[in-house]
């Protein structure tokens, strides 16, 4: 059984499609040891995409654009990897981040396993996110976090509000009532 929320992009290995794939098995190393790799991987992805946004000394704007894209890719990849590491259920398949590029957009795709309980809580969050105004929900969440240390979903909210990203999710029924949750973040260029 598959359930989609938002517009899910079909990533096809076509002739002109560039993509990059990182796979992890979170259980192999303690989370604490693994954590710094999130940053290394995210910065690598950020640097990687700059190849496709070359600098032109005659056009100063290219420097600004390259820095913006590097920053956006690095931030979003880091948030997705942190979430994957934090919420991954080791009974399910591994988290993967795919970065797919074409002329119009950059698509990040991260998948991780989730227990039935975690998947239900996450669905409820997605429902709130899709109904509310993201700008208001973001401020509301920051005010709430000041009182209760509840930062749930703040990464997604910054992607939407600050980076203009579009988010979509796919839930696939997996082992033992669990799910494979695929998160897609699309940055329009």
């Amino acid at each position: 059984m598959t359930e989609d929320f938002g517009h899910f992009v079909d990533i096809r290995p076509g002739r002109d499609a560039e993509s990059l794939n990182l796979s992890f098995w979170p259980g192999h190393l303690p989370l604490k040891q693994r954590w710094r790799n999130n940053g290394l991987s995210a910065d690598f992805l950020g640097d990687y995409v700059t190849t496709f946004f070359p600098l032109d000394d005659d056009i100063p704007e290219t420097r600004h654009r390259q820095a913006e894209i590097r920053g956006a890719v690095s931030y979003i990849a880091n948030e997705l990897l942190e979430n994957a590491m934090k919420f991954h259920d080791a009974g399910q398949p591994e988290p993967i981040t795919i970065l797919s590029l074409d002329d119009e957009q950059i698509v990040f795709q991260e998948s991780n396993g989730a227990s039935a309980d975690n998947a239900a809580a996450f669905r409820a969050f997605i429902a709130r996110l899709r109904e509310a105004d993201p700008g208001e929900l973001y401020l509301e969440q920051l005010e709430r976090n000041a009182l209760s240390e509840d930062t749930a979903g703040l990464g997604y909210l910054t992607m939407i509000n600050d980076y203009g990203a579009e988010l979509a999710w796919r839930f696939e029924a997996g082992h033992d009532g669990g799910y494979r949750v695929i998160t897609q973040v699309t940055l329009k260029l």
Partner: protein
Amino acid sequence: MKSLEGDGYKVDFDSGDSSIRLAGSLRLGGLSEYAPISQLLDESLDGRSTLTVDLTGLEFLNSSGIATLSKFVINARNRKDCALTIRGSNAIPWQGKSLNNLKRLMPALELVFD
């Protein structure tokens, strides 16, 4: 001067200068790991009528860090006894995108970009 240092980041609180500077890349795992920084930020408000938070050297901040910074700004707003300035850099892309939200949390905040 009071300092905190970790893998890839540094926080310096200069009491004489009424400034606290965060530099490097901050991507700690959740609010509990940010607690020492949170504490130093809150402490820097004590008994002070002005404070400058210098972020011009902070290249990266994850969402838990954004949550920590927001919490500090809300705290400063609620205390009402300290005029807060945050200095950011136009050369660091995340700051242009995310720092303006702090102004929405605390309209009296002075946000300056170098």
